[in-house]
């Protein structure tokens, strides 16, 4: 299972500290959402030196990612084009009807993160588009762990609405607690237990935590030199032919 973290400068802990804590908590990997916190992967999808060193040090996978926080769909489109070729996982911050719509209709986006933030909303049209384009919808459990009072109630109500729509259309999903420091990181069993307490299915949440790893694996394979198109790979004996 993977967790997607905000590392320094976006958060209060470095990518290495997140990786060390996540390894102790029993995660298989961390996705570093902050663009400046980790070097991008190489041309053919192999991890950067920094990511490889972190992997050797702590024994868990460290994935480079980017979170695109754009003002509108036009600038988001430019940013997606820029980062798709250099980053393993491309996330787009939602929270606005136009951006949510753009993200789910853009197959180059891997994850639509925090779709219910601010004025953002989700409906059946977006869910169908997300399913058809393979865009994962993030369930942000941050407020469940860290907010209180009315803010938490509203966030949980939004999560429930999102869950009902996304499960009905079977759109792909990811789950994360959006930790901004190693102190906000929670072990997978705690994440699952807390989500279960607010009505999520345990199995479904675990699937959402694993999905980060599947996205990273798929994109690495796509960027590797052997990959031609889905289902077609360069074989070993190509040169002889």
């Amino acid at each position, binding site marked *: 299972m993977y967790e997607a973290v905000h590392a*320094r400068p976006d958060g*209060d*802990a*470095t990518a*290495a*500290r997140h*990786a*060390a*804590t996540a390894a*102790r*908590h029993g995660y298989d990997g961390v996705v570093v959402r902050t663009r400046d916190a980790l070097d991008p992967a190489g041309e053919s999808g192999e991890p950067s030196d920094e990511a490889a*060193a*972190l992997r050797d*040090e702590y024994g868990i996978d460290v994935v480079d990612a980017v979170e695109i926080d754009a003002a509108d769909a036009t600038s988001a489109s430019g940013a997606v084009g820029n980062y798709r070729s250099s980053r393993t996982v491309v996330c787009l911050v939602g929270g606005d009807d136009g951006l949510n719509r753009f993200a789910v209709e853009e197959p180059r986006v891997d994850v639509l993160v925090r779709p219910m933030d601010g004025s953002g909303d989700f409906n059946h049209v977006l869910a169908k588009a997300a399913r058809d384009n393979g865009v994962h919808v993030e369930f942000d459990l941050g407020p*469940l*762990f*860290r907010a*209180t009072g009315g803010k*938490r109630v509203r966030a949980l109500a939004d999560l429930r609405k999102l869950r009902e729509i996304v499960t009905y259309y079977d759109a792909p999903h990811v789950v994360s607690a959006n930790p901004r*420091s*190693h*102190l*906000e*990181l*929670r*072990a997978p*069993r*705690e*994440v699952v*237990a*807390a989500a*279960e*307490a*607010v009505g999520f299915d345990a199995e479904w949440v675990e699937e959402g935590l694993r999905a980060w790893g599947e996205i990273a694996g798929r994109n690495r394979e796509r960027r590797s030199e052997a990959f031609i198109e889905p289902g077609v790979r360069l074989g070993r004996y190509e040169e002889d032919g």
Partner: protein
Amino acid sequence: MKHLPKHLRPRWRYLAVGIETWPDAEIRRRGFQRALWYAAGNLLGDAGSADADLTLLAFSHGDGEGEAIVRARHGHVDEARAVIGCVSEVADAPVGIRVRGISGTVRACEERYMGRAGGSSTQRDVAFEDAERPAVVRGDARDVRTESGYVGAAAFDTE
């Protein structure tokens, strides 16, 4: 009052909890118990909170690290785990928290999961982001003091 016959006594589970904070944070037993009760009340409501019956049995904390034993009713361990995960701050100090394990007796809990502190912490200057900065060093962890407060780093960042 006369104590209950064995089959009527509540059965308990004991959760070993690991705690992590910034080095300057000071959290006390009372504060932690209160945070636990509030978290339970907010997540499970009064009814669920009474069912889970979370009580703090042992607590220690110092230098940014601590541990505790929390008692919960047998059969409500998942709820207890959820509540413990939802403790995000104690007396305004952010805490990292994790259930290390669960036992059926206090003694087993202590023997198996407690006293695993990451070693003593020392204060020294480390090279971090192109500057020498004071840091609290505990095992692999480096809590570096910067202008904007502490930053969590690891040995990897400072070598």
